[in-house]
C-alpha cells in the first residue's frame, strides 16, 4: 500500500512546518503543506488526504489570541468539510499552536492559558502516554516520550480533568516536572473518538536519534517521538 498523503495546514506565522514535514515523512507519509486559505478554496483536497496536521508557530502573530485567526480559517473557511474529515475517523494532530487552534475550533476540549510562570519557555520534558486513552496516536506507547516544549501559552485548562481522563481523552501527561502549570499535568488531549490529538510539546523535534540531548552517550532512542507519527500514519492507512 502506498504512503498516505499527510496534509500539513499552515497559516501566516506557522514556523514548525518543516520539522513536522520531516516527522511525517520519516513515519511513512507523504507530507504536503497547504495554507488554510488555500484549503478553504479547495476543500476537495481533504478527500484524498489520509491524515491532517497543524504545525506549531505563531499563526497570524497570535493576534486576538493564540491560534484564534487560524481556527476561524478552519471553522468558517472549511466548516463541514473539516467536520466530516474528523467524523470519517482519519487521524488529525495539532501541535503547540496547532493544539491551540484545535481547542479554538472546539474539536478538542479545554483551552490553553499563559504558562503559570508567565514566560515563554523552551526545555526538554518527559511525557507519559495514558494507557486507558482512546487516542490512536499514543496507542501502545509504553516507554515515556522525550521531546522539547517551546511555548508561552501552554497551560492546559479544563474544569473536570478527572471525567476527561475517565472518558479516555487524556492522551499525554507531563512526568516528573509540569513545565507550565497544566491541570492534572495534562500535556495532550484527544477527542472522544480518539482520532484527533492536540499537544503542546514537540515530538516532531525528536524523530532521529541525534536530536536527543543525550545522543552522544547513546541515550534516548527508546523515547523517540517518531512513534506518535508512526501510529498516526498506521491509523491513516487503516482508515483509507
Amino acid at each position, binding site marked *: 500500500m502506498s504512503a498516505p498523503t499527510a496534509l500539513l495546514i499552515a497559516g*501566516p*506565522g506557522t*514556523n*514548525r512546518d*518543516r*520539522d513536522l514535514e*520531516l516527522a511525517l515523512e520519516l513515519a511513512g507519509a507523504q507530507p504536503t503543506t497547504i*495554507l488554510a486559505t*488555500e484549503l478553504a478554496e479547495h476543500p476537495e483536497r481533504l478527500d484524498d488526504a489520509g491524515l491532517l496536521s497543524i504545525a506549531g*508557530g*505563531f499563526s*497570524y*502573530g497570535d493576534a486576538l489570541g493564540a491560534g484564534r485567526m487560524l481556527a476561524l480559517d478552519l471553522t468558517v473557511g472549511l466548516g463541514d468539510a473539516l467536520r466530516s474529515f474528523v467524523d470519517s475517523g482519519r487521524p488529525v494532530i495539532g501541535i503547540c499552536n496547532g493544539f491551540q487552534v484545535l481547542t479554538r475550533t472546539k474539536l478538542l476540549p479545554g483551552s490553553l492559558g499563559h504558562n503559570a510562570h508567565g*514566560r*515563554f*519557555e*523552551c*526545555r*526538554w520534558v518527559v511525557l507519559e502516554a495514558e494507557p486507558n486513552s482512546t487516542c490512536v496516536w499514543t496507542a501502545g506507547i509504553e516507554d515515556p516520550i522525550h521531546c*522539547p516544549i*517551546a511555548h508561552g501559552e501552554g497551560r492546559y485548562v479544563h474544569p473536570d480533568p478527572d471525567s476527561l481522563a475517565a472518558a479516555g481523552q487524556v492522551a499525554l501527561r507531563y512526568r516528573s516536572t509540569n513545565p507550565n502549570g497544566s491541570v492534572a499535568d495534562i500535556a495532550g488531549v484527544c477527542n472522544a473518538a480518539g482520532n484527533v490529538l492536540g499537544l503542546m510539546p*514537540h515530538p*516532531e*523535534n*525528536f*524523530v*532521529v536519534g*541525534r*536530536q536527543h*540531548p543525550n*545522543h*552522544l*552517550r547513546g541515550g534516548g532512542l527508546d523515547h523517540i517521538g517518531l512513534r506518535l507519527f508512526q501510529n498516526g500514519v498506521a491509523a491513516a492507512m487503516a482508515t483509507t
Partner: protein
Amino acid sequence: VEIEGAATWRRVEFGDGVDEQLADLLVRRIVANPVIERWASGTIEPTFHAAGAGSGTAETIPIADLSPDELAHIGAERALALDPEELLAIQAHYASIGREPTDVELETLAQTWSEHCAHKTFRALVTTDDGEDRPPLITMLRQSTEAIAAPFVRSAFVGNAGVVNFRDDVTLALKVETHNHPSAVEPFGGANTGVGGVIRDVLGIGHRPIAVTDVLCFGPPDAPLSSVPEGALHPLRIREGVIDGVADYGNKIGLPTVAGAILYDPGYTTNPLVFAGCIGTAKGWEPDRGPFPGDRIIVLGGRTGRDGIRGATFSSLTMDATTGEVAGASVQIGDPIVEKLLIDVLVGAEHLYTAITDCGAGGLSSAVGEMAEGVGADVELDKVPLKYPGLEPWEIWLSEAQERMVVAVKPAKLGELRERCARHGVELADIGGFTGDGILTVRSGGTQVLELSTEFLHDGRPQRQMKATMPQPARGADVGRDVEDPRASLLALLAHRNIASKAGTIHRYDHEILGATAVRPLVGRMADAPADGVVIAEPTDAAGFAIGVGVNPWWGLHDPEAMAYGVIDEAIRNVVAVGADPDHVALLDNFSWGDPRRETTLGELVAAVDGCCAAAMAYRAPFVSGKDSLNNEYTGTDGERHSVPPTLVITAVAHVPDADRCVTPELAQAGNAVVLLGSTAPEFAGSHLDLVHGEPDEVGNVPAPDPDAPTRYRHLHQAIQAGLVHSCHDLSEGGLAVALAEMCIAARRGIEVTELPHADRVTALFSESQSRLLVEVAPDDLARFGDVMHESIHVLGEVTDGQYLSLPGLDPIAVEDLADAFHRLDGDVR
C-alpha cells in the same frame, strides 16, 4: 469601523506615602522611558501621527554661499553627523553642477556617508603617534583574508554577509550586526529589530536563515539608581527589554537562538551592546549578477512609516540626555511575522531576481542607492506603500521601517513573483527601474526631488585622515596573585555574573526549532552546564557546523592587541573543543568602541586590528564579514564622557565533519584520566579573579599568544575524530578551577586532581593563560593520545564516581555546592 489612529496608555496609582515630587521621580526613572513615552498626573491626551498629505515636494537648502561655520550649523540642525570636510565636499559638488541641494539629497548623502553605512573610521588613513602611516583598518583585515586564501571562502567583506563553502555545494552565509544605540534608547524595540535586521542580511544574500546568535553587554543589574546618569535607563530595565526583544523576534519568526554570551560591566551602564548574528544556508548559491538596466525595482514586505528615521546618522552620534527627544523616532518597530512571510516568499525564488538586498540603515536611500551603484535608477516615491499619510519625500526615502526587502526583477519575471507574494499575503510594490545612466533619480508627485551621480554618492566622500595614539601595554615580568581561601574564590567565580549559569535567559529562547541543534548551549546530565560551542546539523545530514564566541573587554582595557589575539583563540578553541575542524574556520569581527576621534581610543582600535590580523594568519582562519559600531559613548548631564570598554566580539563558524563525533564537557567514566593541554603562566591582567577580589596596583600581563596553539588544535581534532576523547572543555574566565568545576557540574561526577600545572597554586587554579583545554582520556588510550598530540600532556588526575572536586592541599568541594554557586543567579532574569 474605520480606524484613523490608535494610542496606548498606562495608568499608575501611588499610595498616600508618595507625594507629587516623589511620584514624578518614580515615573521618570522607573515607570516611563522619557525617550519614547510622556506622562502627566491626572489625564493625558493621546498623540497620533500627523494625518493629511505631506507636501510631496522637496525643500531646497541653499549652501553655496555658506561659511564652514554656517555649514556646520546646518549639519547639526539636521543631525547629519557629517565632518566639516564632508560638508565642504558637498558644497563644492553642488557649486560644480551649478545648483543647490534638496533636503532629500542632503539627507541621502548624510545617510550614505554616515559612520554606520560608510565606516569612515575603518576606511580612514591613520597616522600613529610614532609617525607611521597605516593602511585603512578595513584594508588590513581584507588583506589578511586574501593572504590566507582559504579555498572555502566564497564571498568576504562584500554584500550583506560573508559566504563560506565547507562541503559539496552547500554554502553558509554568516553575519553579525550591532544594534547598540537603539537598544539603549528603547531596549525591546532596539534588540528586536537588531535580530530582524541581521536575519534580513542573510536573506539579502540569497540564503535561508537557520540560526540566530546574540552577545549582550549590560551594566550591573544591581547598580544603585544614583549611579545611572539622567536620561539613561537602569541596566535592569535595559536587560529585561533586550532579552525580551531577542526572544520575541527569534521565537516568533521560528529560528533557533543557539549561541551567545552575556557580559556585565559598569562601562555598559549607559551604552548596552547588542550583537545579533544570523547564519543561513543555501545549495548551489551564486552571487547576484544584476541589477541590469531595465530591471524593475521591487519593494517587498512591510509598509513605510515614520519609524526609524535617520537611524544611521543617529547611531553615528554620541548620545546625551536629550538624545531621546531628537532620536525617539530613530528606533524601528519590528514585526517578525511579516519577516517570516518574506522568508517564505524569497527562499526558493532565487530564479526570479537578478539582485537582492535588505532595507536596513538608511532605508530605501541605502538599499536602492547601493544597488544602483554604477547602473543608475529612477524611483517614484508615490509608488511606495505607506503606513499612514503625511510623510515628506525625504522621510519616505530614508525611513527605516522594518521587514522590507528590495529586489531587482526582469519585467518578464514580475508576474510569477506577484503570484508568490499574493499566495503568502506579502505586499509587493514596483517603485521604478534601473536605468544604466549611472544617475540616481528620485521623483515625488512627478517632480524630481533628487538627482545624484552614483559616483559622487559612493566615491565623493573625502577620505578621513585620523591620528592615533598607540597604547603602551605594560608587557613586563609576570605578576602572580595571593588568595586567602582558593575554595571561596572558586565558589565566588562560579557565582560571578559573567561566569554563572545563563539558563534563566537561554530557556527564554527557542533553541530547538528546526530540529538541527545537535550540541545545545546547555549540556550535561542535567542539561545545565555551559557548552563550549554549539553544533548545528540537519537531522538527516552527517556533517554540520559549530559556532563559537570569543569576547573579553577586561583584557581590552589593559592590552587591546593581546585581547584581540586572545578572543580569536577563544572563539576557535570553543569550536575545536566540540569537534569542529580547525582547518575550516571562518571568523566574524564586530568592534564596539568609543569615539575614534579621541586619538588614544583610535590607537586601541588600531592595536586590536593588529592583533586580529596576526591571529587570523596564525590560525589560517579568514575574516569573512565584520561590523564596527563606534561612538558608543554617553555624555552625562554631569558633562562627563561614559565610554564602553574596548569590546571585540569574534564569532567563529567551523565545519563539523561528523555531528555524531562531537564532544561536550560532560565527564563520561570514572577512572578516566583528566588531561590538561597547553601551558600555564601567571597571566592575571583583566582576569576574573581580579574582578572578584579587586585589581592590585601591579597587574602584570594579559595572557600572551601561544604559538603552538594552531598545531595543538589540529592534533586534538584528530584525537576527537579517532574517538580518543570522551569529554573536553576549554579553559577561559576563571581558569582551570572553573573549567574543572563546570565539567563536574555537567556530569554530576567528581574529579580528583593530584597534579597541578604550575608550582604556584593560585596561578595553576585561576590564571587565564590562552590555548588550554581539559580532555578526558581512557587510561589505556593515554599513550596513543600522546602520540596523536605530539606534545607533552599533563595528567592532572582522574574522574571519580564520588561527588567531590578535590584539589591538592584543599578540602574537597561537593559538586552540588559547585552547582549551587553556578546557579545562584538563575532566578535573576525575569
